[in-house]
């Protein structure tokens, strides 16, 4: 742990005029060099492990924990929709306008082609229950959407819109993609869709896009002031000039499939403002929604709020996890100290026999020991049977010692006890018995000698053991899962659930990050307040 003597400084050296060493070097420089050499040697010793841990552990975990804020799936799946939705006022009480639905149709067309729409649905479902079936049901029906009205409208104005040349010209304009954000996005979707459907890259000189892209172009043009269209008609590109001259003043005649109504027909979820608010809220690539969920809060239209009472869970579990870990650490100290003391003070022969007893449980699988505690502690179990037999309790008064907090504390104390005993023992072994003898010879009573002389020397052992036990217990989940019932489970059990069952890795990562920060903070405080070295000197 914080075992070094960093505090021991070399301040005494500075200040006076530079003395010289024997070979004529200034002492300061010579010392500095020695210091540097020592630092290098220390780093050289640490480096192999540091590199190993960084690569094999920290990197993967960092990657995992980053998922607690990462949220690029929404924008990646619905790029056009996210862009169009940015300007929607979520509090207006109205559904987003037709341009958003057109973009949605376009994005969903691609998403269902590459089969990622349901994945987005399950992601959104974590924050908006019910939305996953909206996406699932929409998938197949998207292909049947009417989408060619806008295309027909353009062609009616100028048959040239049915040629690849028109699109090549449009895409080579200076105003592309700036003025045609929706169309440009739709064109990208079209290219991706084509690649996926036809298994080859799109050749823009031979094909025109599908109806959704015309619809996007219509919405881009419809949202432009007339002056912009006039400006486009005066650009340098001759083909484009011809196209836009034709269009000027006729945009309104192009028409549009009513995507809003069509989506409402596919699933009424698309006509639900709550769903749209959720999509807009979760549009950013970095979100805090997982962290909010991890502290039982949520973002509503009024800002961040605590969830209703019957949905709060995680704060309670965090508090319980820390509380129970402290109790477990405390019981390990209480039970471990006497045994370690006994071990350190018996003859080598006897202490080795006791050590075997301490190590035996260690060789027994955690799963087996946990099962054994079930057999011992349950209401029809061995201990209750013995107590009934001895007449201490009656048949009806069998004790409930498992599937609750007691069960977890007993089983975990048992499992972690060797982690307390062994460090304590190895520290106690280094304490020379002469200290105690000296104290007693100077008149100290047994208990005074113990508390003033022996005990302070064992504090590093208690420190090391406590840190081990506390940190290990805070992250356990298999034992609490098996014996903890409902009141004896830890936050890790929920993390495990979200990793392996609900697939809500973002929330799992957020809970894990909070747990990690808590542990680090506790460790830091512990180091600051108790500061193993200082206690030893005091």
């Amino acid at each position, binding site marked *: 742990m914080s075992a070094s003597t960093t505090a021991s400084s070399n301040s005494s050296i500075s200040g006076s005029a530079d003395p010289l060493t024997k070979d004529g070097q200034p002492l300061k420089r010579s010392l500095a060099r020695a210091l540097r050499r020592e630092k290098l040697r220390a780093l050289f010793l640490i480096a192999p492990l540091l590199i190993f841990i960084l690569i094999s552990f920290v990197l993967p975990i960092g990657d995992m924990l980053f998922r607690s804020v990462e949220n690029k799936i929404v924008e990646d799946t619905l790029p056009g929709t996210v862009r169009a939705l940015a300007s929607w006022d979520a509090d207006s009480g109205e559904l987003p306008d037709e341009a958003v639905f057109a973009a949605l149709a376009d994005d969903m067309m691609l998403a269902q082609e590459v089969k990622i729409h349901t994945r987005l649905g399950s992601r959104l479902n974590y924050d908006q229950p019910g939305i996953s079936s909206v996406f699932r049901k929409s998938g197949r029906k998207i292909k049947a959407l009417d989408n060619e009205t806008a295309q027909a409208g353009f062609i009616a104005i100028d048959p040239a819109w049915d040629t690849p040349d028109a699109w090549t010209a449009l895409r080579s304009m200076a105003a592309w993609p700036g003025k045609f954000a929706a169309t440009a996005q739709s064109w990208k979707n079209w290219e991706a869709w084509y690649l996926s459907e036809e298994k080859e890259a799109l050749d823009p000189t031979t094909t025109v896009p599908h109806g959704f892209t015309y619809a996007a172009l219509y919405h881009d043009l419809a949202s432009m002031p007339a002056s912009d269209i006039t400006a486009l008609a005066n650009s340098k590109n001759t083909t484009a000039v011809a196209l836009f001259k034709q269009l000027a003043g006729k945009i309104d005649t192009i028409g549009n499939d009513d995507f809003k109504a069509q989506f409402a027909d596919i699933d009424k979820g698309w006509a639900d403002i709550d769903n749209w608010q959720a999509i807009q809220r979760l549009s950013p690539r970095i979100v805090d929604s997982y962290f909010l969920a991890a502290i039982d809060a949520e973002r509503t239209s009024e800002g961040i709020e605590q969830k209703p009472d019957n949905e709060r869970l995680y704060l309670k579990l965090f508090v319980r996890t820390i509380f129970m870990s402290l109790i477990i650490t405390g019981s390990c100290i209480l039970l471990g100290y006497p045994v370690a003391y006994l071990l350190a003070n018996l003859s080598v022969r006897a202490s080795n026999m006791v050590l075997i007893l301490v190590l035996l449980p260690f060789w027994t699988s955690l*799963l087996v020991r946990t099962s054994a505690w079930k057999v011992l502690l349950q209401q029809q179990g061995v201990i209750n049977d013995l107590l009934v037999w001895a007449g201490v309790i009656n048949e009806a008064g069998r004790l409930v010692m498992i599937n609750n907090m007691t069960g977890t504390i007993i089983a975990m104390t048992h499992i972690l006890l060797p982690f307390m005993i062994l460090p304590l023992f190895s520290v106690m072994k280094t304490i020379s018995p002469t200290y105690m003898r000296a104290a007693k010879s100077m008149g100290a009573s047994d208990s005074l000698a113990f508390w003033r002389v022996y005990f302070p020397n064992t504090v590093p052992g208690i420190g090391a053991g406590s840190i081990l036990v506390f940190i290990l217990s805070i992250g356990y989940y298999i034992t609490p899962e098996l014996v903890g019932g409902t009141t004896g489970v830890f936050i890790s059990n929920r993390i495990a659930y979200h990793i392996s069952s609900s697939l809500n890795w973002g929330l799992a990562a957020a809970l894990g990050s909070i747990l990690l920060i808590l542990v680090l903070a506790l460790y830091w405080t512990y180091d600051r307040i108790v500061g193993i070295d200082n206690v030893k000197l005091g």
Partner: protein
Amino acid sequence: MSALPAYASTGQRIWHYTFRYVICGFILFFLIAPILTIIPLSFNAEDFFTFTPAMLSLSPEGYSLKHYHDFFTNGDWQQALKNSFLIAPAATVLSTALGTLAAIGLSQSHVPFRRAIMAILISPMIVPLIISAAGMYFFYSRIGLQGTYWGVVLAHAALGTPFVIITVTATMVGFDRSLTRAAASMGADPVTTFFKVQMPLIIPGVVSGALFAFITSFDEVVVVLFLGSAGQKTLPWQMFTGLREQISPTILAVATIMVAISIVLLSVLEMLRRRSERLRGLSPS
């Protein structure tokens, strides 16, 4: 307390014996109670973790060796046992070697960024196992280590190092640095100093650290469930499947065998130690 002096008062005597036989006896009993439970249960004639009436009345019908038979004849268990003994020692050697070196480095007086380095090095212990498992699984899959022997060994070694660091640094706190200086002043090079002076003193820490590292790997189920594939199925994995799919006292039989092996092993070590002591002319204290 090693030996009660002849002049000890009655109070001291009472305390001495209460401490030694009542308090420590109780704690030691607490430690081995689960083991005392599983041994008879492993001879259960039924497929449950239950003391049946036949067992309690000591009737021979209540007992059977069938779970031992299952363990020795079932290829799954044999393979799992073999895998465990291939993985755990390799992980232990790796984490003990790297961990001891780093602990020695960390206990030097001037280590830059000591706190940060320490936090990184003990992080495998702090991060909840399930997060570690998923994170490593994801990463190891990408670099092709998932489902390989070395993937599991590296992961277990990473999980084991914090124990080595913590136990070794704890013994280093009490280490008197003037000893190495004395050795150096008498002309010993750093390597000799390390092996002749430092090592013998920190060896208890290294041993208990190595033990923790071994157990971490030997008893680890979450990470191996993720990182291993069919070829790396260890004992805990097999036990875990057993507990989940169909409770069978075979896992108790396995545990009993493990306990028996470790008793034999530890006793042999103890005997060897006494023998060498006698040979060196040291009487056992």
